[in-house]
């Protein structure tokens, strides 16, 4: 019995050490790692992607260790507000509503919301979306815009883009509205899908930071500007999105 208690104590101490013993201060980033190429889990189980690398570069500039937490996209804004994470970097679009709750850094990339359909679908342009069943990733701008435009009865919310695309392949929805970059990968991975030429919406990506944390916001913007000037930002984006 004594030995068991000793083992438990030792384990606890070890865990505590992992959590708090590192010398440098850490910056906690929240993301939803189901959004390639911005963030996704690679073969070794690590969260990688454009956002992960930019965050790493920003953290280094600011002299912090970076810790990435994977959570539902839905929860990111509230996690920023409650201080669970220092910032969210998740291919998140700047919107007026989100600006009421959090601050956004300067834009580091531009996102385009596109429509994925099956080849031969009767959805040939945006007008044809009326009355169709649209699949979205829950809580994304695609979700918010579509629900506003077409109403809840015409929008199915999935936990990830991959599930929404799976539903499209199964014929459970008529199209999926999602960011251009992951959309390209989804179309590549699933035969018989294509992206409509007309974009559904164009938007700016930025990091969400708590309203009261202006100190972090300023430091973040400063680091971002430096990275841009050094050409590091373009380098990271090019690495994941080869120029067409």
């Amino acid at each position, binding site marked *: 019995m004594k030995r068991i208690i000793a083992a438990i104590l030792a384990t606890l101490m070890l865990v505590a050490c992992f959590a708090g013993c590192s010398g440098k201060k850490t910056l906690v980033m929240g993301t939803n790692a189901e959004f390639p190429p911005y963030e996704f889990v690679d073969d070794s189980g690590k969260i990688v992607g454009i956002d992960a690398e930019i965050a790493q570069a920003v953290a280094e500039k600011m002299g912090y260790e970076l810790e990435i937490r994977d959570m539902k996209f839905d929860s990111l804004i509230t996690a920023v507000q409650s201080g669970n994470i220092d910032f969210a970097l998740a291919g998140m679009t700047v919107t007026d*509503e989100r600006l009421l*709750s959090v601050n956004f850094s300067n834009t580091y990339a531009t996102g385009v919301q596109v429509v994925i359909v099956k080849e031969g679908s009767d959805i040939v342009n945006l007008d044809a979306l009326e009355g169709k069943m649209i699949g979205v990733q829950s809580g994304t701008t695609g979700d918010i815009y579509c*629900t*506003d435009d077409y109403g809840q*009865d015409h929008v199915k919310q*999935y936990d990830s883009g991959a599930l929404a695309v799976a539903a499209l392949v199964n*014929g459970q929805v008529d199209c999926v509205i999602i960011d251009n970059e992951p959309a390209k990968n989804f179309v590549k991975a699933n035969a018989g899908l294509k992206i409509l030429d007309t974009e559904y919406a164009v938007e700016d990506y930025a990091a969400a930071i708590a309203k009261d944390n202006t100190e972090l916001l300023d430091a973040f913007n400063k680091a971002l500007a430096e990275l841009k000037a050094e050409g590091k930002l373009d380098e990271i984006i090019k690495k994941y999105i080869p120029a067409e």
Partner: protein
Amino acid sequence: MTILNFTDWIANAPAWLQALPDWLQNFVFQLYQTFIYQNRWKFFTDGLKITFIVTIGALILGVIIGLLIAIVRTAHDSSVKKPFFLLRFLNWFCNLYLTVIRGTPMMVQLLIMGFVIMAPKTEAGTIACGIITLGINSGAYVAEIVRSGLMSISVGQSEAGRSLGLSYAQTMWHIVIPQAFKNILPALGNEMITLLKDTSLVSVIALRDVTKQAQNIANKTYQAFVPYISLALIYLVLVIVMTKLLSILERRLRKSDH
């Protein structure tokens, strides 16, 4: 979408509201945003509809499946002779079912049913998919509860029934099950409560239950406090009502043991 801004809202609010302290103003604002603005209370009622339909459907299905499995397994285990082939096959099948269902997470079962096996195309189909998946899952747990209930009734009871000439099924139905039911009611109640709470998982197959709708409101308002606390209160009230109904039922059934 018109965006509701606190500054504009409070400027147009009635005087009594403006007289409140800041934190209370903010709280009322959040309540307003969550429930009243753009009739958002409908999110909750729409979500509750799905939650109720799925819970009740899955409950009925789960009890039927659970009862059948428990009877097969009890009949197999308590048969005096070597059980005939069909019974042995059914028992094998039930064991397989219990192992698979209890050995995999409900979330995984929902993903498989929702995107691989059933892949429903209509809203009604998706609701049915939720009911069937949760019902099949719950059935596995109900089966074990019912089986323990059947085992808790002394052999003498079924022997007395059989000695009168009642068949196995008649003995089960008139003598063993009514007594077992009384014994398992508390455990069955727990399973019902678990099921109600587990329905929040159906959002993975794109159903909007009450949890999902609360998330949708939080996504619209970017406020977590009021939507999620309200959601918790809704579940709490439902569970309290269920517990109360169960204890009334239990008291009724207990009238025979003085």
